[in-house]
């Protein structure tokens, strides 16, 4: 053991000096002299070409790459373990990164918080919206988008395409963000035709191709003819569903290329805008807000171009509702509304707009969704 420890302990002092140097450097460069070059690190939990969550972030990173005086470094398939902490530190120590975007939801606590405590000169931006001024340091920030509205619009397109009045949703885990998407999808469809039901299947994992394919096939077997999903990489769901003759609505990124005839539309993140804005703020010497959120109106979310299978009436309604949402204050969850167990969610006249924090602890499936949380 001493053979391993000895040279490293000596090296540790050197390393400590180097670390101090790096942090001193990044502290110095918080002033505009920074513009000489900003290194921005992006960390993904899966493959950056997964046609989904990670690709959406990687497209944002690609937009940052195109900016002047910015170097972008990326690392994919980084698990939510100590690996992620070391990846952040490696980007800081070896590449001089001073703005990091660790994009997986699970990176925040404890990993980002741990590294942030050691690296006061580096800015950490996390996708997921968990930052809390009372608990978390000021050089950590979080951002998130109201993508439920995108699923509401998906639902409208789905309602115009379904023949069986049965639409389906392949979901990863029964957590608030996913439930809001499922409920929004069904409510969007029911705004067109109140007889539509939505069958949901939870796979239990963010990325589990075999179960995603099984779930999609099971939905198709039950006569579901429009399918969307909330898993990290929608590729398997989209291709399987289209292969079974069902229409599909996308999620996370644009999946038109996977099923050009069957793709109706999709709810996409628009990280390119969010990331270039944040990097621009940093280059100009400003501070990024710690808590940033937005929806369609703010450009955080966008919709894939409508596919050929959406009929004229559907196109018109889709565009009309989208224009309505862009005005702000639109509520998908509004009374009278019950959950699928018959409990009242909202009384007549009560509504939850997209920014309502009550939606962030959603623990129900609305009436018309076939499925349960456990």
């Amino acid at each position, binding site marked *: 053991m001493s053979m391993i420890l000895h040279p490293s302990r000596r090296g540790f002092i050197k390393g400590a000096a180097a670390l101090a140097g790096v942090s001193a450097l990044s502290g110095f460069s918080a002033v505009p002299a920074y513009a000489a070059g900003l290194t921005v690190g992006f960390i993904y939990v899966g493959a950056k070409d997964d046609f989904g969550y990670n690709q959406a972030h990687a497209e944002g990173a690609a937009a940052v790459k195109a900016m002047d005086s910015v170097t972008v470094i990326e690392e994919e398939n980084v698990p939510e373990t100590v690996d992620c902490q070391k990846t952040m530190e490696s980007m800081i120590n070896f590449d001089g990164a001073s703005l990091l975007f660790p994009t997986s939801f699970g990176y925040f606590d*404890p990993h980002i918080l741990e590294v942030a405590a050691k690296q006061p000169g580096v800015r950490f931006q996390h996708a997921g919206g968990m930052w809390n001024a009372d608990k978390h340091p000021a050089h950590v920030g979080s951002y998130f988008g109201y993508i439920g509205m995108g699923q509401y619009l998906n639902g409208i397109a789905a309602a115009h395409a379904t023949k069986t009045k049965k639409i389906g949703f392949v979901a990863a885990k029964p957590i608030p963000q996913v439930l809001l998407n499922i409920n929004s999808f069904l409510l969007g469809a029911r705004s067109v035709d109140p007889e539509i039901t939505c069958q949901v299947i939870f796979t239990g994992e963010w990325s589990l191709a075999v179960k995603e394919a099984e779930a999609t096939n099971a939905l198709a077997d039950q006569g579901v003819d429009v399918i969307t999903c909330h898993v990290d990489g929608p590729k398997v769901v989209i291709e399987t569903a289209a292969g079974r003759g069902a229409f599909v609505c996308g999620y996370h990124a644009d999946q038109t290329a996977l099923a050009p005839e069957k793709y109706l539309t999709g709810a996409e993140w628009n990280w390119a805008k969010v990331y270039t804005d944040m990097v621009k703020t940093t280059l100009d010497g400003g501070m990024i807000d710690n808590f940033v959120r937005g929806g369609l109106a703010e450009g955080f979310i966008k919709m894939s171009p409508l596919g050929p299978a959406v009929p004229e009436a559907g196109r018109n309604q889709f565009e009309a509702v989208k224009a309505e949402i862009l005005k702000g204050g639109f509520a998908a969850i509004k009374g009278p509304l019950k959950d699928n167990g018959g409990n009242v969610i909202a009384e007549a006249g009560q509504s939850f707009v997209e920014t309502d924090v009550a939606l962030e602890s959603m623990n129900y499936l609305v009436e018309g969704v076939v499925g349960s949380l456990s």
Partner: protein
Amino acid sequence: MTAHSNVSAGPMKGVPARAARAPGHLDRQIEAFALPLGALAVGLALFALFLMMVGKSPAEFYGLVFKAGFGTAFSWENTLARTSPLLLAALCVAIPARLGLVVIGGEGAIVLGGVAAGAFGMHMTGLGSTLGIVGMAVSAMCVGGVWIGMVGALRYKRGVNETISSLLLAYIAIALMNHLVEGPLRDPASLNKPSTAPLEAAYRIGTIPGWDIHWGLVVGILACIFSFVLIERTTWGFSARIVGGNIRAAQIQGLPVGWLMAGFCALAGGFAGLAGMLEVSAVHGSANGSLAGGYGFTGILIAFLARHNMLAIIPVAVLLAGFEASSGLIQRRMDLPDATILVLQGIVFISILISETFTGRLSFSSLMRKQSHG
């Protein structure tokens, strides 16, 4: 570092295996180092060819591996921080292997050990640091022990192939973990990342003073030393090795083969469970889906590379952790995909497996014997 894992190696001439001048003994000693090191060199050379085929520089690649894995104080911290779960995960493969059992489902014991530790920490609060940490460790080891012990018992009692059963049980374990952290053990405050309640500060294992590495590294090294002594220097271990060498002979000698199989598998699973507990206590602070980080599968590679020698696991785990620590820099600097390190690990693994077939065939004295026998 002894290599006489199998008493069947070489013709029996009534000479005790460890007698100083036993013919071939020195050969086996040399072989124990030469074969794996030779195989490692061949694997690295083959990978260099692979790199050249895709138009990348092997020199740059290995230079980066050295720099990011072992070149600086931070690199060592990065490598050693990744080493600790790998040591215990490798023991979960190496110990049963000495009884002739190929157990590859350590991942299951890791995640369930983590859940057990999380559950203990959640329900048994206020015990103080020592009792709390010991309690978490014991409950994790019990659960992991039962999980893999079951594999050994099933093999003996029902003839169920331990390789298949342990792998399938790992998937069941992950599903069970998801069920528990999303259901009965869920902290209601963990909205979008279902987890057990955060551990109290006293239940968290800290870092080794002066290092950014938690005490799990020391625990892992001690576990390897303990296992080495147990297997190589005690009658229990000797019995286990006889079972591995010739199960019929062991039965004829009246050894309790079933108990040995179940017991040593349980010990192996206990170590894997301990790895899960360390992840929860030292890294995550609660049990959640991030526990399934793939350590159990890297452990398989390490155990085979170390030829199931408990002490050899230590340097091999450090080497593999170093490879993984360098994966990020390779992605960033050489624009190679994340899978590059997996290709390297795969080539080295195959190379080691092939080298096993040369066991006892390359030695000088065996060549002489062949000639003398005509």
